């Protein structure tokens, strides 16, 4: 049977290659779509986990870090640090700004930090060492052609880029990192106002625990002692942000993935059907030579599965190439195109679609009259 299937595939190489390529393309598109979604969710998780805190305190009632407004009272830092088991509470503020250069605007999520919560991985330059230093994500640097040492002007306030960070982006926005002293200057130099308290000054506290402390116990103690804050394990807060991402992006991404799956399934079935249908004459010949319907049907399904088996890794490679291309040209996005879960799901679906698609024309084979083989 295997030999027969191989010969069938080799008989019309162009058709086999085209069929395999078409299937691989379907697999690749599904993997890329799934990879986009997975990448967006991973970025949301990393934004929290990369702050490297044992616990994270937010404004009471606020259960997210990204895309939310959290304002903590200034005194809450001292109150949290006074709780037993807490070694330090590192302040962190998040504000949205728009960076504009030569007509190109980019929304940037600016993290203001002091002793913790700064950039996790630097690609170039150094962390903040001087006043008005700023570290920006590489996607922002690439988009606006910025390098270390360049000026970075926001609302007429000039920062200087000291470092370029890697993987510091989420929720479709690159991150920037700056120090508190510069934030205060930034606020004073902008035109508002009279009351600086209008601006967010403290959004989160990154809690560092003393060795041996139990995080859930300390979290409960902080919430009991400082009612202005809610305290989360970073994993829990990352879950919340991921869940927000799912709620926000999931319907559209999910719909696109479902459309791709459904249409991919139909197409796969049709491609296999067309492949078999185009060879009815050959099947007639084989039947005239004594091959049974059962053997021919099995061979068709085996051929479909063989094509799918070749198409799946080819599709995965194609997806990886597309993902690499997207990440290189638009580093704001992470495309996890070859995640094991998605790969397995897509592979199984592809195999199933191919087999089902090949089963469709089995009826055609059964009805083929061996006489067709001898017609001119």
């Amino acid at each position, binding site marked *: 049977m295997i030999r027969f299937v191989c010969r069938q595939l080799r008989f019309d190489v162009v058709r086999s290659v085209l069929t395999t390529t078409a299937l691989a393309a379907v697999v690749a598109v599904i993997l890329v779509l799934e990879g986009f979604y997975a990448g967006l969710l991973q970025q949301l998780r990393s934004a929290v986990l990369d702050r490297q805190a044992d616990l994270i305190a937010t404004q009471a009632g606020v259960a997210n870090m990204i895309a939310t407004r959290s304002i903590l009272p200034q005194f809450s830092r001292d109150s949290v640090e006074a709780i037993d088991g807490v070694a330090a509470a590192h302040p962190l503020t998040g504000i949205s700004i728009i960076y504009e250069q030569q007509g190109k605007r980019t*929304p940037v999520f600016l993290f203001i930090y002091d002793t913790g919560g700064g950039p996790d991985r630097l690609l170039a330059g150094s962390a903040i060492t001087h006043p008005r230093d700023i570290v920006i994500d590489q996607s922002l640097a690439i988009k606006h052609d910025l390098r270390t040492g360049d000026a970075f002007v926001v609302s007429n306030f000039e920062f200087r880029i000291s470092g370029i960070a890697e993987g510091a982006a989420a929720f479709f926005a690159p991150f920037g990192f700056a120090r508190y002293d510069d934030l205060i200057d930034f606020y004073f130099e902008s035109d508002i106002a009279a009351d600086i308290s209008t601006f967010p000054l403290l959004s989160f506290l990154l809690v560092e625990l003393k060795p041996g402390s139990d995080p859930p116990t300390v979290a409960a103690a902080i919430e009991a002692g400082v009612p202005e804050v809610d305290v989360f394990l970073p994993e829990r807060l990352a879950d919340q942000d991921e869940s927000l991402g799912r709620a926000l992006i999931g319907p559209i991404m999910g719909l696109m993935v479902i459309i791709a799956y459904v249409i991919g399934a139909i197409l796969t079935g049709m491609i296999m059907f067309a492949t078999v249908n185009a060879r009815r004459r050959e099947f007639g010949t084989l039947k005239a030579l004594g091959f049974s319907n059962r053997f021919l049907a099995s061979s068709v399904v085996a051929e479909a599965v063989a094509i799918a088996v070749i198409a799946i890794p080819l599709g995965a490679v194609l997806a990886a190439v597309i993902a690499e291309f997207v990440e290189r040209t638009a580093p704001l996005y992470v495309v996890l195109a070859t995640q094991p879960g998605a790969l397995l799901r897509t592979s199984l679906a592809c195999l199933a679609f191919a087999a089902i698609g090949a089963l469709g024309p089995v009826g055609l084979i059964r009805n083929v009259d061996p006489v067709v083989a001898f017609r001119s």
Partner: protein
Amino acid sequence: MWRWTFKSLVASPLTLAMSIAAAACAMLLAILFEAIYAGEAKQVVAYLENADADVWVMQGGVSNMHMATSYLSDWKAHEVRDVDGVASVESILYLNTVIDAGGKKWFSFIVGLDSSSKGAGPWSMAEGKPMPGPGDAIVPRVFADMTGLQLGDIVAITDRKFRISGFSADTFSMGNTVIFVTKPDLEDVMSSLDIVSFMLVKANPGVSPDMLARRIESNVTKVSALPSHAFVANDRSMVMQMGVETIALMTTIGGSLAILLVAFTVYSQIARQQRELAVAKALGATNRMLLMSVTAQATAISVISVLVALLLALVLVPLTDALVPQVTLRITGSAIERIAVLGVAVALVASLVPARRIARADPVTAFHS
């Protein structure tokens, strides 16, 4: 020749139907992805497009609303009102944050309205009061569709609770869901006082918004003023980068797949007739005739496929709207035109590959076994 072309096309109805169905499916994929993209691209600026303003005034250096932070001292509204050509000024407070409604989290833009607001509130109501009172919130109807929320139910903005007094229509999108509360309530949430975020300025009759914007900027210090069309354009371009760009990328990838599959389908259909075309050549048909026949068939397949895909899309879009109310799908004429032109072009190119092979072949090969 045309009769022969037609006969040749429909000689195997099942194969033809399959080819059309496969190409239509590929085009349907592109049409639906384009519809998602177009729907979201329109919806993200729905608030700005529907707010009744000729000119928007904001903090100096700010030039859009989406994800921007803009604070102005509220007394600047008086200065703007005094500018020659200004008919009226309405101020709003604005905050983007995550809210909790019906057990789900929603990234939302909260608009704080004055009680006298005329043009900054919801422009279309599905149910309930069109203006929020103290402690009230007007939320998109999609919230109700998704979670079963009803009038009088509670939503949380940070740790403050609001009662739903109305469901607005046309205010939901992935990147720009709009919620309306009173300005004092939002001031309370933001712990701010005597500030506004944006001013919606109406111009006197005959006054150009562009000129009025320039006049406001020169008369009022440290503010930015933009005519409505420029403000909308700025926000659209900003939002397109945030999420909608992802959809565009995915649409491009889906479209590329569709192109590949259309090419594959048409190639298969024409290649199937290779022997038949070779016989026609042996019987005296010129290469030109064969080429015309092949391209006519490819055009017919792709045009019928576009029509079938469009028909399917017109059935599927309302169905999707009902099943996934969070996603706005919008089929545009330009998208259909683009897909049709691209589909036909790709089909023609794909059909030329086997056609060229026949043109080069010796007619005698038609009679080989």
